[in-house]
């Protein structure tokens, strides 16, 4: 049967090649949208690692350059945190360089034995775990006892612990890096706690290696300043509280600008900044597919009409209606399958291009599967009416045609 269908398809190769290209192109469109949706959808279901409700992030900007505070002004940042804790209505406050949803990240790497571990890092002070609602899996968060130790305390997230030690039970171990590793100078860094994956860029981002480095108020070592303050407030805190907070901060550090955002706001912004382009892409792709479906219906309809005599002859020779119907759909599925093959072969090349480095393999696989199912469904839907038309063909009438 398949060989017969192949022969039929080959006879009309010129028309079929164009059809094949069209279906393959639609496959690529569905794949692109599908890959995005499965990727972000998969990330959405993972644990987030913090609680964004009723938290403010206060970004400090030095007016000099539009960047963060200069080195050596950590003591001042430390005093700002103390000041914030005094404001009535503030439940907790701390300093964190890279709070959730805030744009910038510090990316560094350790050379460990024969491989390089890339991670995001952020300075953090005592109490940041309480403000952000970080979930400890093992050990503890920073405390003042970390001031007196000859090593720098770090808290790492689950992904980092698994990547580096293969387990989350790694409290007390020091980070095994080669001499000359790029981050943190020569000071030994020792893990004091492990937290749930800290997905700084929010629900849509993948879990990533993350390291919190202890920032002492005296800026003894390691990162010596915090770019951002985080504050936990009661639900529905009024604007007046924000005004009071900013007033206190300005009085203490007049050379800095302060930008207060609720994490809720930042979260919404980040969500839409990722979802708006995908939504537009999705709408456009949806219309493209609708158009392709209508076009396919037209092509198949025409096909059936053109072959009335052939099909009528087959009916006269004893083929059943179902058989004819199956033949038409079979031919369609054959062309579609070849197009899907072409498309899949193209997509599988993707990981070899640098631009798609960040796309994980499972995403590509699920994107391909989703696209195959969608395109097959569309092809069958398009073929339904035309193939039903063939069952209306009356042999006598068909042979009479023209």
């Amino acid at each position, binding site marked *: 049967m398949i060989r017969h269908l192949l022969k039929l398809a080959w006879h009309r190769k*010129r028309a079929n090649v164009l059809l094949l290209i069209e279906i393959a192109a639609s496959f690529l469109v569905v794949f692109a949208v599908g890959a995005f949706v499965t990727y972000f959808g998969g990330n959405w279901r993972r644990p987030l690692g913090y609680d964004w409700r009723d938290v403010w992030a206060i970004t400090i900007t030095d007016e000099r350059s539009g960047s963060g505070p200069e080195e050596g002004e950590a003591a001042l940042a430390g005093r700002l945190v103390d000041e914030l804790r005094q404001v009535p209505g503030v439940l907790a406050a701390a300093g964190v360089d890279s709070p959730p949803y805030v744009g910038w990240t510090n990316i560094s790497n350790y050379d460990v034995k024969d491989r390089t571990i890339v991670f995001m890092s952020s300075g953090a002070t005592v109490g940041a775990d309480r403000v952000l609602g970080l979930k400890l899996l093992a050990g503890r968060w920073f405390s003042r006892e970390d001031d007196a130790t000859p090593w720098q305390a770090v808290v790492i997230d689950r992904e980092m612990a698994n990547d580096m030690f293969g387990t989350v039970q790694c409290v007390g171990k020091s980070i095994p890096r080669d001499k000359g590793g790029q981050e943190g100078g020569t000071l030994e860094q020792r893990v004091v706690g492990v937290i749930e994956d800290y997905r700084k860029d929010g629900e849509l981002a993948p879990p990533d290696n993350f390291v919190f480095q202890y920032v002492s108020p005296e800026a003894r070592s390691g990162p010596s300043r915090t770019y951002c303050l985080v504050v936990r407030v009661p639900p529905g805190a009024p604007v007046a509280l924000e005004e009071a907070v900013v007033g206190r901060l300005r009085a203490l550090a007049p050379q800095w600008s302060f930008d207060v955002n609720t994490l809720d706001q930042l979260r919404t912004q980040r969500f839409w900044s990722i979802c708006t382009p995908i939504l537009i892409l999705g709408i456009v792709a949806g219309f493209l597919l609708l158009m392709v479906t209508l076009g396919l219906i037209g*092509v198949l309809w025409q096909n059936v009409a053109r072959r009335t005599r052939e099909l009528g002859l087959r009916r006269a020779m004893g083929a059943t209606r179902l058989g004819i119907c199956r033949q038409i759909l079979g031919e369609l599925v054959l062309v579609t399958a070849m197009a899907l093959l072409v498309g899949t072969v193209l997509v599988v090349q993707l990981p070899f291009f640098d631009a798609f480095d960040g796309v994980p393999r499972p995403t590509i696989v699920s994107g391909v599967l989703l696209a195959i199912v969608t395109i097959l469904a569309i092809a069958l839907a398009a073929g339904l009416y035309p193939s039903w038309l063939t069952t209306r063909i009356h042999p006598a009438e068909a042979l009479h045609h023209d």
Partner: protein
Amino acid sequence: MHTLKLALKVLRRRKFFTFVSLFAVTFTLLVLLVATAVLDSAFAPRAPEDRPQRTLVVTNAQAKGQHATRTGWAGYKLLVRTIPNLPGVERSALFATPRKLTTYHEGRKLTCQSRRVDGEFWRVFRFAFLEGGPFVPEDETQANPVAVINASTRDRFFGGGPAVGKTFELDGRRLRVVGVVRDVSSLRMLTYSDVWVPISLTRSDGYKNELVGDFGAAVLLSPGARPKDVAAEFARRVGAMPIDDPLFDTLKAPMDTPFGTVVSTFLDQTASGQGALAMTYIWLAALMFMGLPALNLVNLNLSRILERSSEIGVRKSFGATSAALARQFLMENVLLAAVGGLLAAVLTAVVLAGLNRSGLIPYAELSLNLRVLGWGLVLTLVFGVLSGVLPAWRMSRLHPVGALQGRFE
């Protein structure tokens, strides 16, 4: 005229095919027209950037050393040493990137974008002032707390009444309004903001020592000056700048057209002449996007050859040339594209109005002007030809005898 009538008849006879074709054409052109309108709103000559042909811009800079690279907007020091007195330049302006600032006003929180600019900025770019006027270079040298605000900011702070002479508080500082301008779309990367203040109005002057920072410059060429010469002289000056930071030993800052400068952010920040490359990419993207719908129409039209084979056979037998037939089929397609284009223009107007109202792009003023419509016409023609040529060619080549018999391959 005869071909036109014929084409109309054919289109009316097969309603389903006409509908599918129209749908494809309209939708494709709708998407392309919206994209064109966005590009037009961002780059076409319009106040305040109404002289892009005479303007050259520097925004990107890169300092490079063996172990470190710093890329960003240009620094104040780099620009203030290289931009003034360029030969062939009539006026030059320095401006910073906008920064988000907050204020608390009668129990409400107000945020605005604030951009620091010099006094010449207002003469290189020509804003539409609703009241008052720009601040002047003396405000810059004396760091006067003055501000030009846009109409929306006037509404938010002063309830829409006249604002010149009144003061408001922003980021803990009291500013006096000297002028109110019409809103500038946020797609205008070089000029848009809510509030414009003098560059010197800042709490510290560390910015004065930066080679890479958050500043840009725009120069207005004298009539007759060649942009290439000005850019070359600027590049020479940048190359001759002493670099006092031991981390870095080379400095780059391309001077380019406003379009080239803005798009280079997405391509290569350190090169000039990115405008042509960007246009190539834009056309490629447009053609690729047109590809699938065009293929869809090609397939549809090809499959209709049989249905029309007797028509073709008869016409050929009676002496119609292949060229005449090809013309007829092309005309059918162009007619479809034209009707689709018209529909697309109407729908685009609706979509643009929706986008303007949605607030997706702050101060968006997307509109369907003559320039956009002209591009729409070009795109319509390209699409009509793209989707019509192959079927028309195939149909016109049918052999009359075979066609009459219903054989056609």
